[in-house]
């Protein structure tokens, strides 16, 4: 048996947690190895030292504070799990609320697609090099800075929301 193995198993040996066969092999090693014997002595003394070190008493009212928090949680079971957990949030919603949320989501997506299509199907970026020298929008293909396509939903929206200049 080598020192490395004995050193690793020393703690279990000192606590009487090793099987009898291994124990006798460790003892045979300890009988011949001064360094491992010293390590065992140090381990035992270290244990005594830790046992002598005091521990401050449990803070006054710790249990009461824990129980007060526990009662608060018990009063609001949704919070007892995690408020931010999606599963908990989903469970907290009733079926009609879940259905309403799904409908809103679908409507929002449909509206987004509709508006996007209006913009997408408009005239493409101005091509040709003739204008590029004088028109930076054409030169850099920044067509999203051009006017909205005629007749698109985006145009209607902008005309409703824009303020007419005097």
């Amino acid at each position, binding site marked *: 048996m080598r020192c490395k193995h004995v050193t690793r198993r020393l*703690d279990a040996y000192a*606590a009487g947690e090793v099987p009898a066969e291994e124990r006798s092999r460790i003892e045979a090693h300890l009988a011949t190895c001064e360094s491992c014997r010293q390590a065992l002595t140090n381990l035992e003394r*270290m244990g005594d030292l830790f046992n002598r*070190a005091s521990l401050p008493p449990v803070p006054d009212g710790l*249990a009461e504070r*824990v129980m007060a928090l526990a009662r608060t*949680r018990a009063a609001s079971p949704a919070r007892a799990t995690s408020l931010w957990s999606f599963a908990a949030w989903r469970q907290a919603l009733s079926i009609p609320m879940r259905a309403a949320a799904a409908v809103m989501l679908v409507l929002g997506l449909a509206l987004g697609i509709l508006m996007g299509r209006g913009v997408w199907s408009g005239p493409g970026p101005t091509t040709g090099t003739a204008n590029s020298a004088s028109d930076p929008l054409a030169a850099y293909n920044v067509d999203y800075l051009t006017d909205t396509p005629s007749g698109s939903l985006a145009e209607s929206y902008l005309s409703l929301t824009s303020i007419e200049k005097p």
Partner: protein
Amino acid sequence: MQAVAQGDLDAFNAIVLRHQETVWGIAYRFLGDGHAAEDIAQEAFLRILDAAPRYKPSAEFRTYLSRVVTRLCLDYVRKRRPVYAEHVPEAADATPPGAEQISAREDEKTIRQALDSLPPNQRMAVVLRYWEGLNCRDVAEATETSVKAVERLLARARESLQPKLARLIEK
């Protein structure tokens, strides 16, 4: 725990009263900071309360409890820079300390500094093994590692602590 899972707060209160010293002891020994240890102790019990419906008694309750506190303590030090304790809790009495008390405080300060110099996983293994008296298998379960790894952690910790505590060990 089965009663706690059914919402029995009296049963939970009994658990808190029975195990508060263990939870406080692990957190305080590991962190060396009373305020942080108290926060961890509170959080540990609340985690246990939350987890009660999912609790499966696969290990001894004390080991399970140690695992909860261990996770919280290790998370705590991962998120915060280590603070090397320069203080030992002051005695509550106003009488000036005698030579023996001063010596005891100095010894505790030396132990604290030696512990704080260990990497968190070694420190936790030392706390669970030498203070809480858990066997290596339970320490492994609490720290979510193997028995072999715990034995190595303890051997390395002893090696690091030895020169720092030599004066006290030989007293």
